[in-house]
């Protein structure tokens, strides 16, 4: 493909995105261990009950920062822990986030992304990485 194709592909993606994009909540009825949901630049991994969580946190925010992009929030009744270990299916360089646990269904909210409603269980958060810095994506 030539250079013009690249611009055309970009334009096609934008057009298709406008057709298929929906902002209504993603309601996950069932999530097996090892399955993953993405909300923006965070990945929410369903992990087993023996997955190490670390210390309990007061904050409900799942990404560090004070920008709008970082306001991924696990709402009550979920409890947030600092996160101690990556799920075994993640590359060792993956940027780890907090761990979330809830005995009841709970929602991960965000001011811009669609909310995600998840079944009870334990979840590990990881962050999308920037290949240039191998650090968490900044937004």
């Amino acid at each position, binding site marked *: 493909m*030539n250079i013009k194709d690249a611009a055309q*592909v970009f334009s096609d993606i934008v057009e298709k995105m406008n057709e298929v*994009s929906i902002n209504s909540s993603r309601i996950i009825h069932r999530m097996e261990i090892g399955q993953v949901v993405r909300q923006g630049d965070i990945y929410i991994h369903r992990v087993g009950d023996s997955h190490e969580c670390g210390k309990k946190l007061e904050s409900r925010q799942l990404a560090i920062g004070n920008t709008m*992009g970082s306001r991924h929030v696990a709402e009550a009744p979920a409890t947030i822990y600092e996160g101690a270990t990556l799920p075994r299916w993640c590359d060792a360089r993956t940027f780890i986030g907090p761990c979330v646990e809830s005995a009841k269904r709970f929602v991960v909210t965000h001011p811009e992304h669609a909310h995600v409603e998840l079944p009870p269980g334990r979840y590990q958060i990881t962050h999308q*990485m920037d290949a240039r810095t191998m650090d968490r994506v900044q*937004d």
Partner: protein
Amino acid sequence: MHPDYERYVKACDYPGVLDEKAVERHLAEYLRALGIERQIVQLKSGWSLDDHPPLQLYVRAVLAEFLKRDARVALDALGAQAARDARVAQAARDARDARAIHRFACLCIQAYSWQYWRFELSWLVTTWFGAKTEAVKIWSQPLFNAFICGTWMLHWTDDTLYWVAKPRVHTERPSRGFRRLHCETGPAVESDVEDLYFWHGVMVPSKVVETPERITVEEIEAEKNMEVQRIMIERLGADKYMRQTGAKVLDMDSLTLVGSAPRALMEDKRGNKWMIGTDGSTKRVYLMAVPRDVRTCSEAHRAISGLDKESRLIAEA
């Protein structure tokens, strides 16, 4: 509810009222409560360091400290929000020209001060609501009143307490979520210290709003904040960007999840690889840097997500 709560809420709608004499009266009371002596000076639009020797001394002292420390550590200390503007600090350190030093002074006052503290009053004055002891009430009430009368932030030097009036702000209210800063024709925060530019809630360099045609490929690729980079491409024009980078398409597919749009893997003329991906709920398109050795969209996504296989993904938003 605290009897002053409604006044506070009203005062948070910037710029609101500005009663300069009342501000200075309340700040004098605040200083007396603290047992500190300072001149009280308003920093007005158009100020220069030459007109404010105490501020100039302060900024020179901070710059001297920069020279003593590792620049990277110093820039980090300014905090994430200031990181972009911290390049100005680097420029000041290198160039030492008056304009760069002025911008550095703006950064010190308006972003984060040298020692991490920040006297942005909407936050600090809430102390008044929870003040239980006389020792706290005596300083928090006059400070609260200074905020009500129009003070936005304070800046301390050895002999002067500078104060800045609340800025004029331009906002939009998206269909979902809170009011956010946005202006398509100029600064979204018109501040007496330094104007700030926002695009749908994201702080961006001024040229992104005012002269987007002058954004360069190098600037886009050097930008580490993905939201800012996305906006820079949008403002320059994706078509123009692709043409200028000499991008060619290596792969294209789709995850086929609810809300998922197609994605593509691109390589520019320097061999850098980028994945064009979308958010299924925000209608945003991102250009994500991916490792040079990936050959497909799936490999690229696995590299930046850390996942061993993409089939683990059951939904995205």
